[in-house]
């Protein structure tokens, strides 16, 4: 199925239940955002200003009578393996959980970022050196989460093992 506003494939299927009879809409990502922006009112905290303007804001939350397609729900259920945040959480709160989200949700975030900034690549300053390789950084985040779980489960043997691993990576 094609987007009703352009020729791209329709990714978002929205059923409006607010009128007399249900209205079906089929949009590509861009036009879905446009549509949902028109129908939703923005909140006004500093960061979410631009975000709500660009994000195909959670139709579930903003418009309780709107049914969301299975595709959208599947995107929402994606979870970052490092920090455990779901894409749904992000859409709801407007905050990502960890650095890895930029890569694991890249498919959803890239158009969003381009929409907000009109660009997709950083050209400003860089830190003089990268101290922690991306890989190790992700491992550390995951280990810290595991450590928290181990402590909550009172598995102190496991906790001390994880602590050692964290120390090793930190050095």
């Amino acid at each position, binding site marked *: 199925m094609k987007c009703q506003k352009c020729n791209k494939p329709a990714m978002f299927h929205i059923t409006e239940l607010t009128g007399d009879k249900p209205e079906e809409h089929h949009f590509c990502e861009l036009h879905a955002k446009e549509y949902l922006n028109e129908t939703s009112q923005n909140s006004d905290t500093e960061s979410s200003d631009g975000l709500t303007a660009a994000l195909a804001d959670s139709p579930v939350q903003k418009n309780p009578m709107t049914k969301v397609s299975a595709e959208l729900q599947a995107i929402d259920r994606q979870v970052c393996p490092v920090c455990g945040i779901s894409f749904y959480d992000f859409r709801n709160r407007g905050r*990502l959980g960890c*650095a890895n989200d930029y890569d694991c949700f890249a498919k959803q975030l890239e158009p969003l*970022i381009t929409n907000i900034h009109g660009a997709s690549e950083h050209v*400003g300053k860089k830190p003089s050196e990268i101290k922690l390789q991306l890989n190790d950084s992700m491992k550390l985040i995951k280990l810290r989460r595991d450590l928290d779980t181990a402590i909550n489960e009172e598995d102190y043997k496991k906790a001390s093992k994880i602590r050692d691993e964290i120390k090793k990576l930190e050095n």
Partner: protein
Amino acid sequence: MIDEMLSQLSQWLQGEGLESEIVISCRIRLARNLSGYPFVTRATETDRRSIRDIVYRVANEIFEQSSFYFVDIDTLPTLDRMYLLERQLISRELVESVGIRAALIDKNESFCIMINEEDHLRIHATTSGFEPMRIWQILNEIDDKLSKSLSYSFHPKLGYLSACPTNVGTGMRVSVMLHLPALAVTKEIEKVFRSLKKVHLAVRGLYGENSQPVGDLYQISNQITLGKTEPELIKTLQNFVPQILTFEKQSRDFLMREQREILLDRCSRAVGLLKTARTIGSVETLHHLSSLRLGVHLGIIENITIDEVNRLFLNTQPAHLQKILGEQLSQNNRDVERAKYLRSNLGSI
């Protein structure tokens, strides 16, 4: 700490900077996150404590120990938090969120680092007057020093990673606070807003995120943080702000020429009200102080300096008022005390 601050006027309110008749202050903030830790929303208390401790340790290495306050916001009394908020040293988010969080405040109040706000670090600096490049030099230097000891979360393509994609890239927000009473009166301000939108600059009011701009104070800032260098982002404001200043000045001239009586009336009513009120709220105070400030610049009101007016803007806010009086007050009592404070400080005019 607060006692020491009470005796000094925030640098950004000293009102001697460039274009200070219209520009109240100019600020830049940088959003930074540490690699190896989840962003603040997913951070455990243990993570938050580690982040706080790391920044504290590094700060002691790179700054003179006696040159800054390190304030744990989670254990700070509410009134003191509000005091720091009114001074624009910390944000409402830092005041109201929960969990371990802190602020490193330079004793001259020339820069501040919020820890565990929306991002692990929010470094910001403010000056009075419109001098964004000077602020950038200060912040850039601090950021360079910090990055020698801290491991920033940096993406090869996206730059500095932030908890919200709206800040990714440079993590930089440049903002300027303008006093635009004449544009507000002549309703030309709508035009300004529309043109700002076209160049991706955002406008908001000064006090409270949700409230309408009070006291004709407007904050203009860049919306984009990615795909432009830091100096380029500053340039966008440098290109636009002078135009707004010219526009405001023209509107002031127009009002002085065409509606002199109305303008005189507005200013003298404001003075009358501020000098005679027996109880007055903070929003109403801001409103009239705005007219007073305009009157001083137009030469309608004499015997008071802009510095003194700026001081009144700050000191009549709830937490400042209570700190000056040295006691906690209910809102009703605050309004009475505010009126008293204004009367005693406006005796000369």
